[in-house]
């Protein structure tokens, strides 16, 4: 087992036809801890897959260095890195049966025949694919192929597992099942795992550590809870959570201490946040609040609320999503099924100010 370290790594793709260059990974500095499940999360084109491929050795960076454990592997061939990878399309060898798919890597590493057999059987048992060993990938279902792809990685006992959106080709039900299995498997094996996904639910449930990326740059590194409760910038605030965090234009003013003014309503700011907001007095900020932190003021009996106009109510069974707007900002509130809305579609929204965040409108970074 080994951790992975990126030092000032930059990867640029040159497109021969258009003669354009795209910076896929921009001066990346990252430490992936040993034995943990790290998820690289971001929208498509954010550089997460390139980062994974850099670890695998399928891409060579233009600048910087990559270390696996203490070994510098920046320019070494994938076979010298002792890693195993699960591809999005599984990339099973279509002309080989499952047994040979699993054994291929071990044969390349010149393992003795008996050990290959032992390891393949062991992994097949672990993943419950023993009865499939003689079949070719074409004769397997999507879920079975996924297991074989996983088995092909496990059988090698590598230092690092790399997984490139391995669940994205499964249907929703199977995905949820395999997600849990994957987590149990990683806990059992304790091998460093780097997992790429654009699905924040997958990232939150799987990742010990989540690395959010955008435009080839790391936006935030942290545990799921940190990212959710204390997003480092507007990008992370928007990307994590479904529905995402509401972002509302507001002004900080001084009136019996600091207050935040939304529309014409003044809301208190928790004391611990005041210090950082001193320099923003009489300036515009972006206020962030999660949908579940907006509540019905009448039901709670609160007297500080914002009167808003409801656009749509989505009924989801256990909860309702109330879509409303304040000036031009569209806002969603996640409420229990009970909600009281007037005939004129006016709704009194209570903001739980202990949970609010503030962002700088220009740098988009979190300020308090």
């Amino acid at each position, binding site marked *: 087992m080994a951790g992975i370290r990126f030092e000032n790594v930059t990867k640029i793709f040159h497109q*021969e*036809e258009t003669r354009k260059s795209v910076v896929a990974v921009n001066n990346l500095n990252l430490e992936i801890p040993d034995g943990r499940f790290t998820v690289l999360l971001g929208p498509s084109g954010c550089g997460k897959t390139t980062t994974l491929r850099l670890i*695998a*050795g*399928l891409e060579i960076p233009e600048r910087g260095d990559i270390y696996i454990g203490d070994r510098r592997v920046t320019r070494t*061939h*994938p*076979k010298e890195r002792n*890693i*195993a*990878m699960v*591809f*999005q*399309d599984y*990339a*099973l*060898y*279509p*002309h080989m049966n499952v047994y040979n798919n699993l054994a*291929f*890597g071990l044969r*390349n*590493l010149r393992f003795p025949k008996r050990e290959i057999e032992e390891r393949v059987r062991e992994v097949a048992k672990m993943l419950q694919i023993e009865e499939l060993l003689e079949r070719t990938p074409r004769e397997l279902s999507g879920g079975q192929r996924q297991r074989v792809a996983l088995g*092909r990685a496990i059988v*090698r006992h590598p230092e690092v597992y790399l997984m490139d959106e391995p669940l994205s080709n499964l249907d929703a039900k199977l995905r949820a099942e395999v997600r849990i299995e994957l987590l149990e498997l990683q806990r059992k094996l304790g091998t460093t795992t780097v997992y790429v996904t654009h699905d924040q639910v997958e990232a939150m449930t799987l990742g010990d550590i989540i690395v959010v990326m955008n435009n080839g740059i790391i936006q935030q590194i942290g545990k799921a809870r940190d990212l959710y409760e204390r997003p480092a910038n507007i990008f992370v605030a928007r990307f994590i959570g479904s529905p995402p965090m509401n972002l509302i234009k507001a002004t900080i003013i001084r009136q019996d201490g600091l207050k935040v003014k939304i529309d014409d309503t003044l809301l208190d700011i928790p004391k611990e946040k005041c210090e950082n907001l001193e320099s923003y007095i009489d300036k515009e900020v972006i206020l962030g609040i999660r949908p579940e932190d907006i509540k019905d003021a009448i039901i709670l009996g609160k007297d500080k609320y914002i009167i808003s106009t409801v656009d749509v109510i989505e009924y989801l069974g256990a909860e309702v999503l109330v879509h409303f707007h304040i000036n031009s900002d569209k806002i969603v509130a996640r409420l229990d099924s009970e909600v009281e809305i007037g005939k004129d579609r006016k709704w009194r929204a209570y903001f739980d100010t202990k949970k609010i965040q503030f962002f700088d409108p220009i740098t988009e970074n979190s300020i308090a």
Partner: protein
Amino acid sequence: MDKKINIRSIDWEKIQTEKFIRTKRLRNIFTITAYIILTTWAIVSLLPMYWMFVCSFKHIGVSFSIEDIEFYPSNPTNENYINFLQLDAPPWISKRPVGRWFLNSLLIALLPTISNLIFDSMAGYALAKMRFPMKQAIFWAIVMTMMIPEIVILIPLYRMMFDFKWYNTYWALLFPGFAGVGGIFLFKQSIESLPTSIIEAARVDAASEPKIFFKIVLPLSKPILSVMGVFGFIGGWNSYFWPYLVTESNKLYTIQVGLTSLMGAGGGAGVTGTLTFGIDEYGQMLAGASMAAIPVIIIFFLLQKYIIQGITIGALKG
């Protein structure tokens, strides 16, 4: 005047049936016409072959002219075959090396085909899946050479064989066919359609580049390999002009060149040191041609599937 039609009185079922019969009849007419055209075409194509086989069993001296056409020999004989192979020729006559001709044809059908499969697939793989500078430029340079008609390069190539001192050797016969642009192009197109992730998976699975090529890429390219193999073999076996151009000694003749050399002094290549044929000895030549056609016919029947595939590959990807 009011004219009322009683809808109930219309026999809808009858109308439907008639319509159905009409369409079916039309479709039948179309099918029959297609069959007539194709059958005629097949007969016209097969007739020369059939005529060749029939005439190879005719007696020496029988007229081969179109007026005396016979669709089956009235009195078949195998003497043309015996004479062609000179089975009963006296030992002091230096014989035609017919066996050698067949061997040479086999060589020119097999060796360049095998080498083409190896080199074209390697080049195709490199162009399809590897990353290296100037890749596009190299590919286009290769493709551009496809625009040059073969006949144009024949003379320079012939001169080259002289300069290499390869004229009238097996090198001249075989070497120019060892790699082909068309093959590279077809392999590139075919290998491009393999998912890159499979190759990358093998790379991560600690496979060396040659191993990836031989254990992953080639086995997955079986269809194109078969097609190229079959076409290469048939093309090589039937090749005539190049072997005729670069060989002088009859020991280097392929069966096709050998056969035309039988046409006598007035016909194809003069065969020195062996018997030459007058116009009357067409029978022997047809016997030889019938024998020469057998391998191609066998290959065609065995590998029909791949030949048809080859035609469609050209149609889809060419």
